[in-house]
């Protein structure tokens, strides 16, 4: 830990406060403007709203169909995360606990996907989904997310499973445990923290993803959150009051979740990304 002199500490502290202001101001501005009307936005963009016009929220919510979009996003995100966890935990268990031919190769193949963006494969993905009749469906989207999430999840869960002491497993085997009981009774409970990290990381990436829904989904009724707001932005391009309300509705729930779980988010992202 760096030791700073008092004046230096004050300078650094002030700089960090300025940094926080740069982070917070855009959100604050959107939130303020979401209660104003157009005249107020143009004439007094700095000030607090004269009165809180909640009707902006009402209109944004209904015309952008945010209710539907929220349900869609919740469905797609939770199903994808569940799928990723199921597939990856089993895969990680195999890779960590069994010795078989091409194990190393399989593992390298999986973790090569860690840094390789799936969007590079969008043309084949799109062609395959078309042939399977899954274009413009949530299932198509979910399959893509599960496939792209496996790399990171398997990588992380395998590390957690590698850290489980061998003795624990050996004594379980002596007591007559099958690989199945070892998986459910030992491996899964002991990797729970890893599962939380995988869940959060994928929550952020799937929930926020714009590219895949943008290409795969065309029916408005199936829009996810970012797509719905983006469509709304295009349609109401000069109604900044409504856009601000729609943006607030998109941003605030995620922020609340973030502040609740910030500790997990931060340790998860950083230790997950590279350790």
């Amino acid at each position, binding site marked *: 830990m760096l030791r700073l002199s008092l004046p230096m500490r004050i300078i650094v502290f002030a700089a960090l406060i300025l940094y926080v202001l740069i982070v917070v101001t855009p959100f604050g501005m959107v939130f303020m403007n979401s209660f104003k009307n157009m005249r107020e936005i143009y004439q007094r963009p700095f000030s607090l709203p004269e009165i809180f016009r909640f009707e902006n929220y009402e209109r944004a919510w209904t015309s952008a169909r945010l209710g539907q979009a929220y349900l869609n996003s919740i469905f797609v995100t939770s199903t994808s995360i569940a799928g990723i966890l199921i597939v990856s935990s089993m895969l990680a268990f195999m890779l960590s606990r069994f010795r078989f031919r091409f194990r190393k190769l399989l593992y390298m193949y999986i973790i090569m996907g860690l*840094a390789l963006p799936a969007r590079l494969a969008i043309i084949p993905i799109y062609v395959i989904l078309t042939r399977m009749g899954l274009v413009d469906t949530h299932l198509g989207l979910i399959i893509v997310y599960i496939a792209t999430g496996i790399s990171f999840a398997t990588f992380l869960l395998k590390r957690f499973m590698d850290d489980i002491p061998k003795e624990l497993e050996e004594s379980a085997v002596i007591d007559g445990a099958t690989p199945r009981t070892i998986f459910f009774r030992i491996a899964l409970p002991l990797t729970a923290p890893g599962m939380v990290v995988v869940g959060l990381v994928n929550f952020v990436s799937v929930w926020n993803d714009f590219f895949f829904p943008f290409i795969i989904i065309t029916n408005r009724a199936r829009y996810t959150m970012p797509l719905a707001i983006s469509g709304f932005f295009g349609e109401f391009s000069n109604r900044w009051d409504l856009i601000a309300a729609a943006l607030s509705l998109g941003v605030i729930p995620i922020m609340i979740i973030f502040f609740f779980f910030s500790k997990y988010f931060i340790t998860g992202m950083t230790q997950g990304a590279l350790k």
Partner: protein
Amino acid sequence: MRFVGLENFRSIFFGSFGAEFRNALGNSFYFFILNSFFELVVAFFIAVFLTSRIWGRRFFQTMVYLPNVISMVLVGFIWAMMLNPQWGLVNQLLRNVGLQNLTRVWLGEADTALTTIVMVNIWRNIGFYILVFVASILNVDPELMDAAYIDGASNWRVIRHILFPLVVPSFQTLLILIFIWSFNIFDIVYALGGIQGSPFRTTDVLGTLFYRTAFGGLGSSAQDYGLGAAIVVVVFLMVIPLSMVYAYLLEKRRGG
């Protein structure tokens, strides 16, 4: 579908499409250069301060990461409001502190649009890099630094000779990630420059060019999977060796 041999690759490198491709490639490279500077160099120094003895360290670490959990397109739209030439906060602020002549149509002028978009991108992503550096600085043995201070080392020397060498591995891996991600940027340019890379293609990147080519440029041109695929193959060839190095580095470090 018709087999055209290397025809698509010829179009990419030569002719009128070639010019467009080089423009987009150049802009993606610009993204990479600015991203690397801010997300590695600036982020490292912010991380150094975030790990020093300072009030409210936890609070700052949380706030730094905040924009990272917001969808990139939403970040784009939020900044579209901030940068609105008439009432956006950025120009208002400049006017209010008497810097009238610095006000710009940030996203509408050819010489500022791309840099503005890159900076918005950095605004959202830098928190991740800062926190990775924070994590690796916290891994540095405190006794090493204590010993250095006892020997009378200055802060600058501690940063240069202890912290920096010990976080070099993070620099390597992050540089690879920045390279790969820079050439896959799409959302933020779509949100702020549009699918045509406005104004006048100055913000066009490989992601938007690819989208226009493969999936149709919203009416301006026919869709051409083959040509689009050729663009992706070029990006793929640039990116795949690096992602192999990345996977290798992660595994090697685990072993050591």
